[in-house]
């Protein structure tokens, strides 16, 4: 029973990952996170009706509910996994070193390839796309209502956890 269960979970995860990879390859400009959410919810009914395939017999209604929730949870894990390569500064630094001759870089070369200006420019552009702020032609930044809400939430969260120093 345990082996069958593990195989079913791995199959559902692999299926979602494969679908996300396929769709991302076709929609290169789309958000991979949106793709993951759509794939998880759209394929959940398929997972439920694959009960006979996965477990060798039809599941009772409670089993189908658990199977659907398991499938959605696996989509959530894929979402979290994706934030690592997609967002992590540390992993990008490792990749830059991997791609460099002799897998070594001076601090200057690393900064030229992936430095603060590139990082901040890109993050500001993403926050602008997300309607959190606007950037005028002269570089002045103005927070929009969504950005102010985000700022309030981060400030409150840091106060709640007594975080005094971050990135």
């Amino acid at each position, binding site marked *: 029973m345990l082996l069958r269960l593990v195989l079913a979970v791995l199959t559902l995860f692999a299926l979602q990952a494969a679908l996300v990879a396929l769709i991302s390859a076709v929609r290169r400009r789309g958000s991979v996170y949106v793709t993951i959410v759509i794939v998880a919810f759209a394929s959940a009914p398929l997972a439920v009706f694959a009960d006979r395939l996965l477990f060798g017999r039809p599941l009772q209604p409670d089993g189908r509910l658990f*199977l659907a929730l398991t499938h959605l949870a696996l989509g959530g894990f894929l979402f979290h996994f994706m934030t690592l390569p997609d*967002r992590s500064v540390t*992993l990008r*630094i490792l*990749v830059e070193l991997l791609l460099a001759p002799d*897998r070594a870089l001076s*601090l200057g070369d690393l900064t030229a390839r992936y430095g603060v200006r590139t990082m901040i420019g890109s993050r500001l552009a993403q*926050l602008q796309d997300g309607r959190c702020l606007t950037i005028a032609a002269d570089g002045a*930044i103005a927070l929009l209502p969504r950005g102010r809400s985000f700022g309030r939430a981060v400030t409150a969260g840091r106060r709640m956890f007594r975080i005094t120093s971050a*990135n």
Partner: protein
Amino acid sequence: MVTGPVIRLLLPVAGVAVFFALSWATVFVFQPRDPKRFFLGYALLLLLATALTYRALWPLDRIEDALGLACDLLLQLLACLTMWNAFYSVLWGFSGSLIYDLFNEPGLCHRDRLIRSYEGDGDLDRILARRLPNLVRGGWVDRHDRTLRLRPKGVVMAVGTLASFKVFSLGMGGGVK
């Protein structure tokens, strides 16, 4: 004994509530240098507690019961991971920090001034200064004077990351679009 399927889903809800309370108390009171060790420990212990409680209440007689246990454990782990990720990514991470600075320091509401505040005056900018010591200490990278070299452990991680870039069409990652 309660047997309704929805009742079984209350177990991960309770687990997640305890995880949040323990994590918050640990960070607020003790201010540990590396909170993720505590988060990991609490998450694993609470998964064990959920598994034991579930088995005591609902013996694994049918595949549906086993699936219910797997579902509970996965949902609880996912919720813990979401809190953990929110803590690091939103409260401590780069975009959250940018918004925090813009919200709390109006003087930084200009692209060049904001960038200069991150570049600083030292040898390393604020971003690298936080990460390089950890990469060196963790054995991922060697640093000699101003040169960084990838170590075997770092090669494995970098190859895996590069594979993810390709498989999921992520470009070069690192939060840069």
